[in-house]
């Protein structure tokens, strides 16, 4: 039997893609963990689904709605505790080989939807030195231990990185009786959503220290303390500003990296800015029939958009016979997704996600086709941690030059 689509990853992206792809043909979800839901299983905080369901759900609640949907569909097969060991491209289909307690099984699929999520950057990957004792871990690992296993790694801890997981864990650990001495951020602005600063730090009087980083971890068996230091504009520690802080844990939340090892093995080209595959407006990668969705494509702020993007991919799987893409040009943006547009198969509206390259005051986004403005939008302020979504009506043809330009309003006067 050949599946219409094989979805690798049973998190929010994979589940949404599978549900959207489920027409009359069979779809398979392969999940390496014991349960569907992905990282949402451990995100017990709320705020999920505000856009999609108009409700503030917890991560497991949001996941459950999709899990129920997946299991109610006759055409979706699910394999949990199943790990993909290899993918082979054949003429017009793919062979996905897996391992599980049931053995080595290969599945055939006409399309592949890669929804493998992302991993966390580690302390050593941001140049933290010293020892490697117990108590040093990523925020995601701490979240798993606290929220799924019910054990707490921290008594008195320092959190490095003001990304959302770091902020959420500051509150979570506080509520579980740990003392969070402070959140340290090497950048000059916090990395997480503004509302998380308010409800996770300010509400609990947890100090946020900007332009400071952890340079050293002390302690051999268990963390005994960390050295923090001011950083310069290039985020290098400044000698002489070191301060020793006694603590028994260092929780690190210093960025997420899309997991694209499978995509890379297939020769799919990735965007150095997103660290995910380059895709067209249906999330099809540079390899026909292979899609990338969710945090494997680019790290999203909101699961609601993860679901939306994944559905676009799921619906498209197997639909187009041919495609011809043009590049999406940009200036002033941190990144933009999709990076290409298929001009042969356009919908009335195309959705783009972008991040500003740097923090701005009032700014204006202008979209041009062959130099002619087709869309503009004004923003009161933009921050790189907060991705923006725009829906643009255009009808493009091969050879057109599409360009997104973000300018700070003050820049223009100068």
């Amino acid at each position: 039997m050949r599946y219409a689509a094989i979805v690798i990853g049973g998190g929010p992206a994979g589940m949404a893609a599978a549900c959207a792809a489920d027409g009359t043909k069979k779809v398979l979800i392969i999940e390496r963990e014991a349960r569907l839901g992905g990282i949402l299983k451990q995100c017990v905080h709320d705020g999920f689904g505000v856009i999609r369901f108009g409700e503030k759900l917890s991560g497991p609640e949001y996941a459950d709605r999709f899990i129920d949907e997946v299991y109610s569909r006759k055409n979706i097969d699910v394999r949990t505790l199943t790990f993909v060991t290899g993918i082979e491209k054949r003429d017009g289909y793919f062979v996905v080989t897996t391992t599980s307690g049931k053995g080595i099984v290969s599945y055939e699929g006409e399309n592949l939807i890669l929804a493998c999520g992302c991993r966390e950057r580690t302390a050593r990957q941001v140049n933290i030195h010293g020892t490697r004792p117990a108590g040093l871990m990523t925020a995601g690992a701490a979240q798993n231990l606290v929220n799924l296993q019910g054990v707490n790694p921290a008594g008195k801890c320092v959190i490095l990185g003001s990304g959302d997981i770091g902020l959420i864990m500051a509150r979570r650990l506080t509520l579980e009786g740990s003392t969070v001495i402070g959140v340290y951020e090497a950048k000059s602005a916090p990395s997480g959503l503004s509302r998380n600063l308010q409800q996770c730090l300010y509400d609990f009087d947890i100090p946020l220290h900007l332009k400071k980083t952890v340079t050293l971890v002390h302690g051999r068996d268990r963390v005994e303390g960390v050295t923090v230091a001011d950083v310069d504009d290039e985020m290098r520690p400044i000698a002489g500003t070191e301060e020793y802080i006694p603590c028994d844990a260092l929780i690190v939340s210093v960025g997420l990296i899309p997991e694209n090892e499978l995509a890379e093995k297939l020769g799919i080209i990735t965007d150095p800015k997103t660290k995910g595959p380059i895709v067209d407006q249906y999330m099809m990668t540079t390899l026909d029939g292979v899609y990338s969705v969710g945090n494997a494509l680019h790290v999203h702020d909101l699961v609601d958009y993860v679901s939306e993007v994944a559905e676009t991919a799921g619906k498209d799987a197997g639909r187009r016979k041919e495609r011809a893409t043009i590049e999406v040009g940009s200036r002033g943006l941190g990144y933009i997704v999709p990076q290409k547009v298929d001009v042969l198969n356009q919908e009335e509206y195309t959705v783009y996600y972008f991040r500003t390259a740097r923090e701005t005051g009032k700014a204006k986004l202008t979209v041009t086709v062959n130099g002619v403005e087709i869309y503009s939008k004004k923003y009161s302020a933009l921050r790189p941690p907060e991705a923006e979504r725009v829906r643009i009506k255009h009808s493009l043809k091969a050879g057109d030059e599409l360009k997104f330009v973000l300018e700070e309003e003050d820049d223009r006067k100068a």
Partner: protein
Amino acid sequence: MTERLETICIVCPNGCRLVAERKGNAIEVRGNKCPRGIAYAEAEMTAPTRSFTGTVASVFAEMPVVPVRTAGEVPKDKIKEIAAQTREILLKRAYATGEVAEANICGTGVDLIVTADMRKVVGNTEGV
């Protein structure tokens, strides 16, 4: 009584930076992109509320802790008390999403509800 407040709206992910000022009996709010921001700022000036999220213990090895949240918002100053109370709760059967783990938690008038379908995870739904 607070006269002026600068805060970040937590109602939705937009994170509007709000400035609220008491003008006589009225409260003037700036910086909001939608009406919910006004309501939020007014509440922050008078009686701030939050929702609580966390976990409670269960008797099931497959799910030693179970996610919970308050069904609605509770007074902000009750959050720590609720957190302490969640350590005392033990779920002895497999609850469905939305089932009440403890009614009227800490006298707030709001229920603490389970936010994961335990029946999907645990084999023996009867409990012990």
